[in-house]
């Protein structure tokens, strides 16, 4: 088996809201290997988003261990975590979170600005490559408001790729998109995964989860079920069978 990217042992996360303590995660064990394509599923309040935030080093667990690429994250301070996010992780959000009035290219460059080792020329090249990888090389100098939702999400994916991360984390990446665009994004993810990228995404749509290689179902802060996807969907095939009118409609 390939390298273990994520190893989680009896992870717990408690929130204190006033005097009430909410147990968002109640002891989770999980391993994700390099090259996996994992969909985390569950109803709202199941702890899946909390899980993703902890995986992304945006939030710290209350107890338990989290090893990312062999490094124990729990002992790190804010700055070290920022560096980790900068160099090992890529984020994709449901609402894209692109900087307004900033070109696609500059949005993609952004993570590299926070890495002082990268020179401006390398930065630009890396951003152009990432945009090419998501098929947006002709939209580099467009502002987010000149792009469709799907294109904006592609820019966001390019941004998550630009630092060559060990892991891409996506929080409901298709949540704001229509069916066809959602499948296009999944197609992009499948392409990236085939090229060796490890991707973990959260979704509550069972159909979207079927594009992954493995599903992890959360319920009440615990993993309820974990399975390899047997009836995996291929985004390209689906796109090919979709009516052509729909494509034209989208292009306008």
């Amino acid at each position, binding site marked *: 088996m390939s390298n273990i990217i994520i190893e989680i042992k009896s992870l717990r996360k408690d929130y204190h809201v006033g005097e009430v303590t909410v147990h968002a995660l109640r002891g989770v064990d999980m391993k994700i290997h390099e090259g996996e394509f994992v969909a985390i599923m569950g109803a709202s309040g199941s702890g899946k988003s909390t899980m993703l*935030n902890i995986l*992304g080093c*945006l*939030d710290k667990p209350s107890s338990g261990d989290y090893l990312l690429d062999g490094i124990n994250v729990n002992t790190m301070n*804010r*700055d070290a975590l*920022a*560096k980790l*996010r*900068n*160099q090992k992780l890529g*984020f994709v*959000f449901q609402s894209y*979170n692109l*900087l307004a*009035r*900033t070109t696609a290219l500059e949005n993609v460059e*952004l*993570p590299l*600005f*926070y*890495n*002082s080792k990268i020179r401006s020329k390398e930065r630009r090249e890396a951003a152009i490559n990432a945009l090419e990888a998501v098929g947006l090389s002709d939209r580099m100098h467009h502002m987010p408001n000149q792009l469709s939702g799907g294109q904006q999400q592609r820019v966001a994916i390019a*941004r998550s790729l630009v*630092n060559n991360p060990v892991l891409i984390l996506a929080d409901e990446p298709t949540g704001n998109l229509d069916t066809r665009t959602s499948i296009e994004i999944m197609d992009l993810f499948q392409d990236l995964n085939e090229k060796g990228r490890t991707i973990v995404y959260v979704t509550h749509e069972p159909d979207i989860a079927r594009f992954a290689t493995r599903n992890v179902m959360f319920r009440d802060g615990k993993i309820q079920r974990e399975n390899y996807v047997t009836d995996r969907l291929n985004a390209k095939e689906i796109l090919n069978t979709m009516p052509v009118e729909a494509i034209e409609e989208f292009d306008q």
Partner: protein
Amino acid sequence: MNLKNLFRIAVRALVRNKLRAFLTMLGIIIGVASVIAMLAIGEGSKQNIRKEMSGMGTNMVMVMPNMQRRGGVSLGASSSMVLKYSDVLALRNEAASVSAVSPEVRASGQVIYTNQNTLTTIYGVSEEYLMIKKLEVGSGRIFNVNEVRSMSKVCLLGQTVVENLFGTGADPVGITIRIKNLPFLIIGVLKDKGESGMGQDQDDLILAPYTTVQRRLAAIDYINGIYASAVSEEKSAVAIAEVEEILRRTHKLKESAENDFRVMSQSELIETVSSITDMLTILLGAIAGISLLVGGIGIMNIMFVSVTERTREIGLRMSIGGRGSDILKQFLVESILLSILGGLLGIVFGYLIARGAGSLMSIVPIIKVQTVVLAFSVCFAIGVFFGWYPARKAANLNPIDALRYE
């Protein structure tokens, strides 16, 4: 993130909200503009006064009678009779650090020529007076020793008197005028001297031999004052001490008695006036400083708004690797940029205000490099000081909370 990119982000953020940025800067602009204008005008008028007063002779030493009191009773006018011509002689003979001495006897009276007349002051002086007071003869001559001794009815006119009696540009040398009904021959005209630092017309005067004024016009046996020149400006303090010592002796004052005269030097007067204008400048500057403070608070306020507005952006930046210090720097650069930009505009406006106000008050405003540097550094400090707290708040945000902020 390097400074260049931080700067770019800050510029972009400000350009996005041009009007808001301008309104925020307004406080700083007004503050800096008023500081610059106040200091420029203050400095300009100080230089003005200095120049005019030194035009009157910086090494000039004046002796005036001192109003005397005996047992709480003012002796009034009689005490103003203490200075005699003998004092002048004593000073001339004994005071080593004094180079020229002249008595001054004042009489005021109507001066008549044909159908023109004017009221002016006639100064009875010796010929050294011109040198002491830095007066110059424009045409004609000054009276000589013989004319002084013989109480000759000769006089020199100031430009204002010439204008009033003969019209502008006239040269009345050789003409006889009547002063208090006595005929006086005009032997010279003084050069234009302009207004004094206090706004007094220095050309509205007539000079005549002190003997003539004393006996024929004022009919007194004392003199109103003594004017002398110290050998140099630095020696004026020594000269004052010397004059005081000699006059106490000639006035036969007891050890315990107060001086019945006052000695002042021009440089002392300049110091006094300068310190008054300095005080005023500081006071006005302080008031202007308060508006800088208010401007700074305005910046702090808008920085808080900016941080709140961009909470999600902060969250995103943190999630892709921005450290707290990066976020801190980003907002600090923005607030410093705001305040420095405001400062720059303020300097420009301040200069224009100083120019405008200066031309109204006929003062050439002087903007010192130190003032500009000071204004600049104060603006920088304001940017850092008032930007720090909002920037700190942004830097301490929890990335996950910031990302979820609606």
